């Protein structure tokens, strides 16, 4: 990879790997998933897990996991290519809570017993995870969380409190929670990281609709839930370190460049099928300009992403360019859906109607347009990201 001049070309092995990924997706995706992928339809959890198992059989379900824990041992560029091609294909997006969050955290901080117990079932899809971070009064100020875990003196924690925005908790088997284990300590220092089996008595999961009309979020209540102490990850009261490490694992995956690129192609298709003034909107200079502007924004982000990947491939620490990936990636995805809605015109009014009311390719746009407002909020809102960049990178004090 090291060469004498700057080089944007992908090496022949990487080009070949991209072909391999494409061929795999073509062959391995069952027809009923492929049909939905072509329409960018919403997948239900059963379909998501079906695709999860297909990828697991290929060994690609956790591209960024080291080989010793069942990962494929891919280099940074191959990981990026795999992620990008999966996004471009419109395949179901896998649940990230096990694969991208708690899994990597356990690899970094878990005990041998925890790794052995949990990692294989994350890979196989046998156990689905969800995330217990936010609470009704702990959003951006996460460290003010109040869910309590008290030592019962008999080798257990007794957990009480409420978590919210627990995405897809209704389909999950396990939840990882930030809990308060020392109420007297300063905010960040009294928090621990616990793994909790959702089948434990005392847990109630209540799904509710998002603005996208889909039941993505839940409220999760814990009432005297007994959790064995061996489910503590890291040290007692060391949970804040875990919380921050987990966000670090999340960052490499959130530029969503592939998904945005796919959606831009898709709005070109919609524009090409939408007529106004005797021509299609794809031939209308105003809409061409709007689409081009977004595509260029994406291209700039993609190039920043390439710089980050090339740096990582050479073993360098993440540079400043990597910190903007979440910030920009989330905004661009929202802007693309906003433009799709504008191009659809009156078709954008339609809300979960029978097939045929609007063209199939436009059927799912409105729901996503709504739900994706979440991208600038989850994983640390963009305002929080800006606070972090201002302090950590730009050296502006508080």
């Amino acid at each position, binding site marked *: 990879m090291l060469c004498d001049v700057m080089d944007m070309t992908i090496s022949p092995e990487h080009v070949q790997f991209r072909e391999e990924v494409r061929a795999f997706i073509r062959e391995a995706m069952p027809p009923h998933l492929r049909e939905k992928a072509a329409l960018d339809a919403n997948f239900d959890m059963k379909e998501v897990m079906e695709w999860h198992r297909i990828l697991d059989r290929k060994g690609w379900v956790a591209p960024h996991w080291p080989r010793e824990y069942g990962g494929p041992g891919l280099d940074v560029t191959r990981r990026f290519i795999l992620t990008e091609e999966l996004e471009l294909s419109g395949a179901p997006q896998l649940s990230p809570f096990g694969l991208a969050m708690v899994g990597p955290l356990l690899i970094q901080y878990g005990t041998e017993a925890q790794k052995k117990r949990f990692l294989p079932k994350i890979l196989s899809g046998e156990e689905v995870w969800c995330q217990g971070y936010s609470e009704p009064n702990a959003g951006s100020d996460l460290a003010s969380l109040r869910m309590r875990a008290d030592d019962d003196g008999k080798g257990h924690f007794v957990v009480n409190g409420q978590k919210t925005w627990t995405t897809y908790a209704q389909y999950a088997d396990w939840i990882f929670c930030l809990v308060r284990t020392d109420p007297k300590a300063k905010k960040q220092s009294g928090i621990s990281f616990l793994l909790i089996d959702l089948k434990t008595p005392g847990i109630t999961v209540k799904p509710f609709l998002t603005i996208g009309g889909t039941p993505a979020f839940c409220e999760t209540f814990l009432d005297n839930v007994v959790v064995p102490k061996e489910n503590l990850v890291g040290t007692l009261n060391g949970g804040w370190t875990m919380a921050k490490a987990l966000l670090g694992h999340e960052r490499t995956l959130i530029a969503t460049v592939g998904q945005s690129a796919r959606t831009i192609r898709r709005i070109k298709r919609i524009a090409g099928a939408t007529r106004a003034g005797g021509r299609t909107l794809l031939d209308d200079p105003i809409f061409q300009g709007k689409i081009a502007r977004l595509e260029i924004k994406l291209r*700039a982000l993609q190039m920043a992403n390439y710089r980050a990947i090339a740096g990582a491939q050479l073993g360098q620490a993440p540079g400043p360019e990597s910190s903007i990936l979440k910030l920009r990636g989330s905004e661009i995805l929202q802007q693309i859906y906003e433009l799709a809605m504008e191009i659809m015109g009156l078709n954008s009014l339609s809300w979960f109607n029978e097939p045929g009311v609007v063209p199939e390719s436009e059927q799912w746009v409105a729901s996503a347009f709504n739900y994706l407002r979440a991208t600038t909020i989850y994983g640390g809102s963009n305002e929080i990201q800006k606070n972090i960049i201002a302090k950590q990178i730009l050296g502006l004090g508080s």
Partner: protein
Amino acid sequence: MNFDLSEDQKLLVETVASFVKQKSPVSRMRGLRSDPVGYSPQVWRQMGQFGWLGAAFPEAVGGAGGGLVDAALILEQLGTTLVPEPVLPALVAGWALLRAGSAPQHRRFLAPMLAGESLLALAYAEPQSRHDLHDVETRAERRSGSYRLRGAKRFVLAGHAARAFVVSARSGGAPRARDGVSLFIVDRDTPGVGVQAVATMDGRRAAMLTLDCEVGADALLGQEGDGADALEEAVDVGATGACAEGVGITQTVLQMTLDYLRTREQFGVKIGTFQALQHRAVDMFVETELCKSTAIMASIKVSDHDPVQRQSAVSAAKVQLAVGGRLVTQQAIQLHGGIGITDEHDVGLYFKRMHILNSLYGDEEHHLARFAALPSFLDGVPAP
């Protein structure tokens, strides 16, 4: 993929950066604003001797045999202190001559410029043409053994001091057609060439040209009517250079602004502790990184053999420079407050230069439209 610099390139960047800091702080450019030439011919010669002017040109024509990435690295550094020597316009004019000219023409006109002994300027913009390189109303009529050139060219950068001009003229073809555009090398002293020196907002100089002159057949660069390729490529090189220089500017004014936010106090605290201003600074940082990313992409892809690849990358970078460069320099003034409006403060000089870079070699709307008109715009779009 690899965006690390080679050892030679690192050394080049260090050398230019140290020159810029020690020999050409912004105060030098400030002082030359009132000078009729606007730059120093001595420094120009030095730049030639250092090999900076010929960095991207082949050794056969007197260059250093590097690539356009090298030229971009130099321009980025020159942007940090607004070095006033006309390196960018010379690169553009030289590139047109390199692409279209013959070995004798290279020897006579290009080599002396790359050595820092003379200056060339590209004369292509006309009153009606805006950014369309094919909208050429300057006429070239063939006589026996010569050409008659008639027309006018506007804002020929560095034209006030140029020894010769690379001039686009229509020798055939329909109005605004790509075909029929010819390039000529026209000596400044040719009878019938009128040069009116004008000032530009960034403290530099350009020329308004009037042409009613006769040039020899040896003034034609390449084949008659076949100049569009070289002209387009040269202007893309200019756009790429503008992006690189713009990166030097955005990085510098971001740093200036951060320094100001960390020291200026109001309400008894450093203003950099205010969240509204912190977030503005982050917006500037994000755009600076994106400008840097696309400028790198353009500096690599501008040499791509496929013109679609080249144009797509250059246009994307130029649009990003327009959006990002505008935001960064405008907000730099805003965050400096009243002091940012004074001529005494440097931030306004960067603001002015950024506007010029955004207007040159195709502006935002031009590149947006070109990007959307490329065949690559429809790549991978599924049929409806």
